[in-house]
């Protein structure tokens, strides 16, 4: 697990806070404008010709210590954890706060654009509780960020908050991604409610073939879904939104978070999806992330995964068996029935992914999702155990 933030010292004035970090040879290839690039100087690397770099117009160097700076170029150095930033990454530098944040990490198992902290739902188990502040500045930064990403990226997440609250900013973001990232699939997490309005669904037409809309649906009946997301009428809006997107040719993934309030309808939910939206390209059943509201509501959400494992296996297998690609996220293999193992994915972003001490001896650790870094005693299944090689081979 490698964090996304670290302390840093900035010497010299930076024109812009966003920088693409590249080693010298890649920087000189010119794929990214020089004035957006911080040249990475490894501790044991060759000397850099400061004059030449300055004349070429590079924005900065990123180096180990103050003594590694290059004359005449701004420098980002003395990182609290130097491993946090690597060539290929895009960073945001806040000189006043003395902080560097990684907005894009080359080679990570997941990269996302965080578009807003605002949301129009209040899900009981939200791991990223929304804030009602105007953060529309983010969109401008993201437009800039998109042009600094690796163009060979397979998949890029878009998350929040609720991305449709950007209004016209979301279609614009999709268009910019299409241009800058021609082969990248956008995976946009949205509650889909806004798409109940046909005009809103019309506006994202440039996403057809390029976007997978990942929409959470927590029940087969309105009242239970509405309760989980704490909004009257949300179920009908989401269901209409899903159909409006599908009618316009969009790809849709449905997401179901398993907890005490969704569990009673989980198997019926699978049947509902199959009957009412058999066009979805993927269904994900997800274990809780113990963060944010999930912690506040722990007592009304917690079910030991060991206890819901059999029902989860039935629900997921029934969809998979009927031809809808289905996955299980965030549930470690040791608490899942063996039948469901083929559907379990290593779903946790590597920057917040940890393993339990019990995992040390486990034969299937290498293909297990492990745990969120935020899990603790209150969220620990009694079924956690190392799987022995003989068991794994069965």
């Amino acid at each position, binding site marked *: 697990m490698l964090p996304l933030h670290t302390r840093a010292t900035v010497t010299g004035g930076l024109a812009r806070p966003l920088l693409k970090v590249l080693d010298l040879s890649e920087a000189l290839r010119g794929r990214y404008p020089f004035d957006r690039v911080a040249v990475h100087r490894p501790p044991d690397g060759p000397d850099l010709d400061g004059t030449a770099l300055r004349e070429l117009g590079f924005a900065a160097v990123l180096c180990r210590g103050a003594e590694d700076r290059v004359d005449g170029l701004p420098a980002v150095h003395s990182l609290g954890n130097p491993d946090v930033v690597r060539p290929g990454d895009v960073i945001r530098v806040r000189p006043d706060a003395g902080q560097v944040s990684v907005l894009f990490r080359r080679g990570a198992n997941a990269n996302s654009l965080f578009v807003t902290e605002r949301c129009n739902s209040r899900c009981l188990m939200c791991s990223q509780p*929304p804030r009602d502040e105007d953060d529309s500045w983010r969109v401008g930064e993201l437009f800039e960020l998109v042009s600094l990403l690796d163009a060979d990226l397979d998949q890029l997440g878009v998350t929040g908050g609720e991305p449709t609250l950007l209004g016209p900013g979301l279609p614009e973001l999709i268009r910019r991604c299409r241009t800058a990232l021609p082969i990248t699939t956008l995976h946009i997490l949205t509650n889909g409610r806004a798409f109940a309005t046909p005009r809103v669904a019309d506006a994202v037409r440039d996403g057809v073939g390029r976007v997978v809309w990942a929409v959470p649906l927590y029940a087969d009946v309105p009242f239970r879904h509405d309760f989980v997301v*704490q909004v009257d009428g949300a179920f009908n809006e989401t*269901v209409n939104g899903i159909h409006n997107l599908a009618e316009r040719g969009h790809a849709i993934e449905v997401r179901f978070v398993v907890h005490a309030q969704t569990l009673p309808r989980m198997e019926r939910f699978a049947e509902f999806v199959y009957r009412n939206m058999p066009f979805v390209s993927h269904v994900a059943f997800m274990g809780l992330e113990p963060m944010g509201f999930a912690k506040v509501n722990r007592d009304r959400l917690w079910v030991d995964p060991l206890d819901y494992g059999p029902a989860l296996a039935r629900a997921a297998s029934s969809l998979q068996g009927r031809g809808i690609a289905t996955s299980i996220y965030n549930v470690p293999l040791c608490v899942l029935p063996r039948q469901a193992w083929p559907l379990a994915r290593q779903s946790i972003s590597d920057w917040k992914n940890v393993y339990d001490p019990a995992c040390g001896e486990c034969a299937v650790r290498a293909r297990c999702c492990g745990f969120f870094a935020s899990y603790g005693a209150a969220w620990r299944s009694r079924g956690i155990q190392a799987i022995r090689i003989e068991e794994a081979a069965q």
Partner: protein
Amino acid sequence: MGERVEFRPESAYRPAASSYTLLPFRFARIPGVPGRVLVTSEVGEWHFLGGTEFRAFVGGALDPTSDTYADLHAKHFLVEGDPTTAIRLLAAKYRTRKSFLRDGPGLHVFVTTLRCDHSCTYCQVSRRPISESGFDMSERTALAAIDRLFESPSPTLTVEFQGGEPLVGFDRLRHVTEAIVARNRTEGRNITFSMTSTLHLATDEMLAFFRQHGFQLSTSLDGPAWLHDANRPMPTRDSHRRTVAAIERARAVLGHDKVTALTTLTRRSLDHPEAIVDEYVRLGFRSVFLRPLSPFGFAARAARRIGYSAEEFLRFYERALGHILDLNRQGVGIDEAYAGILLTHVLTPFPTGYADLRSPTGAGLGAVVYNYDGAVYASDESRMLAEAGDPTFRLGTVHDRWADLMRSPAMDLLLATGIAEVLPGCSDCAFLPYCGADPVFNLAREGEPVGHRPTNDHCRKHTGLFHLLFRRLAEADPHVLRTFLSWVTRGASDAAHAREAA
């Protein structure tokens, strides 16, 4: 961290007591499922209710906090408040279930010859001896039929060769295939070829040709040798041996899954369900199609000798299905193709494309038949009916334009009598969403195309099959449910090929 949020309790989102409206549904009580009522919706959702629950449900008194209430709500048997979303989902499900109507007939049957080397007691096709002349499709007729094929609008076409024995006239079959392939280079349709044949006459050269064009071959296998040979007499008395050898040769050239077989069940067959199924397993088939006699062609005349009632068939079928489920329990993966079709209708939101169990009827709307003599029929059964003297469902000839064939009086009659939703005895039947209309059968059996359901064999057979399958679904044995589910997943594509034959 985010702002402080007050979370409202679940009760704040629950509906007010008993404020729901019923959506259209039908219901039935299933023999062997005491005390429960099956409800089915217009789009094929279904649910079993207890007797008391059922009365509460229709009386508007169902407890809104009960699981049953949520189940019926989710399946759109009831709606509360604004019905817009529920009706939209119902409409989408209805469109999906009837999606076979979108493109018009996809199955085009070419009867290239009526000659055959067999003389089966139940033959549906009024065969002709192999040496007779005047029963082969002429080149002029074939070319006109191909024009009609490409006038039909469907982007996906199945071209099926039937006879007689199509291999008796292999040259014509080859010409027709090659002409269609050549023409399709500019038409760009998605075409599948299939042939119904005993395969006895298939040479290596013919099999290579079938492989080249991706043919699906369907043959007839009635069971073990003693049964098959009794049903399918040849002068040499070795039809079974020849069939098995032909299946092996065809599999070797085309691939195992390119050869399917179906049974025709005579009175003799009815005592031997296990032996018939076991013969299919022995020969490596993953599917057996247990098909009762149909009342056409010679079969109607031989009915007294080889025929049986719907009830006798159902007793046989129940035993066969039990045996097949036992085999699956033991790890032998074999399905019953017709159960696969019916279960696909029950357990999925999709149609099967099976032309003989649709509403509106598949005759003329899902299939057309080009006969060797140039006549165009709405279905194979329509053709047999004409051979027996009643040309009611003859659409015209291959020289008529497609549009005129589709506007023929025969099509008018099919549309007037081939929609189960408006037929007496069907319109209020709980199994309607999974069943179909068969005016051709009705005309053949009852002398008029609407049919009288209480004495109608099509209805008795299907009602019996649905009773059997829903009883199994009500019992909910996990192994049976898993097996059924595996049949619909696999069966959906097989069913398209599993057509009436020989």
